């Protein structure tokens, strides 16, 4: 029974290093939990496989999705595939994919009644919040990168690496097209992280996984409806869905990057507000039921 030896009255305080590294400990702990969840694995698997299935479906059709940017080139250049996928994903898939974890990462502790289990351990609420938030943000980045990379690989492998026709009609060499595709996918990371923040806020405030996961998707769709309506331009530029289309400017000649920077700033604003609000709510909360 040496491991449980409790002799001696002095309390051993946690080592300072352990306290300092608390956020990292919680991050690793949350990551270990996520890895063990079937839902998380399925989403990751879907991000890898879906682009290949998408291209396979396209190859069986003679028509092309011409209502989508670069849709008309999907049979002519593999580089059009990740851009078409990005166009679709930005509508609802990326908010949904990132919310699968973000929207439930706090609410699951309410569902399982485990707040009082984890908040009585050696980590502070701030560390637990920070660790969980970092894990959700990481997941958002991972699914975006996986979906983007898989789309690019699927396009190049199944269609080919032919030059791509840009939005100004200029032909983009494979190397240049690859760089622009990667930059395009990178440009949606800020709004993805902002939607992650939205999911985190709903997860803390609603204490309900369904609300946390579905809420950002619904809000995203409402924002898209708003952007299609005749809203004033300043309002439209503040919608979180607008940055998902900022990459279009990369494919013009000359390129315009202003929307990318503005979209990143708007996304950062959403992220800070949502994460700050979520922390304020969790910090003040009494754990009385779960």
């Amino acid at each position, binding site marked *: *029974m040496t*491991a449980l030896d409790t002799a001696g009255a002095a*309390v051993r305080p946690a*080592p300072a290093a352990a306290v300092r590294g*608390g956020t990292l400990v919680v991050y690793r*702990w949350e990551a*270990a939990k996520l890895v063990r969840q079937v839902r998380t694995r399925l989403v990751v698997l879907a991000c890898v496989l879906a682009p290949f299935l998408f291209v396979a479906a396209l190859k069986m059709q003679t028509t092309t999705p011409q209502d989508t940017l670069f849709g008309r080139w999907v049979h002519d250049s593999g580089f059009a595939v990740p851009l078409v996928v990005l166009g679709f994903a930005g509508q609802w898939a990326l908010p949904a994919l990132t919310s699968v974890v973000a929207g439930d990462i706090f609410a699951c502790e309410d569902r399982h009644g*485990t707040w009082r*289990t984890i908040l009585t351990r050696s980590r502070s609420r701030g560390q637990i919040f920070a660790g969980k938030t970092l894990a959700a943000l990481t997941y958002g980045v991972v699914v975006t990168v996986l979906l983007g990379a898989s789309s690019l690989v699927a396009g190049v492998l199944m269609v080919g690496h032919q030059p791509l026709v840009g939005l100004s009609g200029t032909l983009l060499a494979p190397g240049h097209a690859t760089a622009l595709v990667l930059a395009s996918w990178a440009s949606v990371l800020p709004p993805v992280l902002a939607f992650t923040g939205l999911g985190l806020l709903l997860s803390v405030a609603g204490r309900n996984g369904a609300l946390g996961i579905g809420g950002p998707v619904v809000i995203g769709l409402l924002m898209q409806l708003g952007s299609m309506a005749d809203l004033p331009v300043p309002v439209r530029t503040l919608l979180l869905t607008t940055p998902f289309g900022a990459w279009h400017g990369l494919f013009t000649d000359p390129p315009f990057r202003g929307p990318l920077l503005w979209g990143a700033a708007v996304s950062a604003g959403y992220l800070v507000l949502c994460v700050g609000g979520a922390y304020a709510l969790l910090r003040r909360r*009494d754990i009385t039921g779960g």
Partner: protein
Amino acid sequence: MADASSEAPAVAAAVEARGLARRFDGAVAVAGLDLTVGPGRVHGLVGPNGAGKTTLLSMLLGLVRPDAGTLRLFGRTHGEHGARARDGVAGFVEAPRFYPYLTGRANLELLAGLDGGDARSRIASALEVSGLGDAAKAKVGGYSVGMRQRLGIAASLLRDPRLLILDEPTSGLDPAGMRDVAALVRRLAGDGVAVLLSSHDMDEVEGLCDDVTIMHAGRAAFDGTMAELRDRAPAPEFLLTTSDDEKALDVATSSDGLVVAREADGEALSVRAARERLDEYVIALGRAGIAVRTLALRTSALKSLFFDLTGGGPADAATAAEPTLEKVPG
């Protein structure tokens, strides 16, 4: 009771609460409570539903913030020391909860990862001590209440506690499990661990605790040692049926230190007397030619005092004996 000293943390009281108060939506849960738990002491916290026991334990574990008062754990406060105030503190409030999609062992591994240090090395011994056995390989979703209780105790032991806070630890356990928990608590106390446990069962508290706080409406109706509590306890109450209750009542009138009354339903007599006086009364009944048909303890001395202090009555005895979860408002 140990003296509290906030100046020397190494020998400070495990718990030192002064004027602790908390309201929920205007309803008083804890009202200016003082509590001291010394190292190596087993301190019982008893009270009827809604007395504030779970709120008090939640405040000790940092789950609920007090509205007023000071709370020190080994001389540290949550406000000044944050999570470090819980160093050496472990336990659970209400039923312990875990991730149902993981096994008991996997849950402990996760919690050990959260605690850091050498918590992981204590998993095997914690499982052994808690008596979970092979059930640790099964998913928690299939656990009974008693198994979750055992896992909760194992999870607490991972932290190598100097203060163990247990809310109804024997709730849902079979008699063997209750015996094991009692033995564990006594052994930990023998090693210098302070144990604060809540219970509805005065008999359990009497057999296990050195000190006791009886809570009523958020306040301490009694706070002292078990010996002090016994000194204050009134005579126990018995239920008596005889061959002639009328004559039995007449015999009782001539006896000092004995209170006999007819039950409301007229089917039996209630007798309040110390054991010695009861013996004399029963002998007197025999000499008077009255046969004693049944004689049963209805309310023990400590339960009687519990009811006196908390304003409950013998009718609440069933409630007092039933392990039910106290609901915290809000």
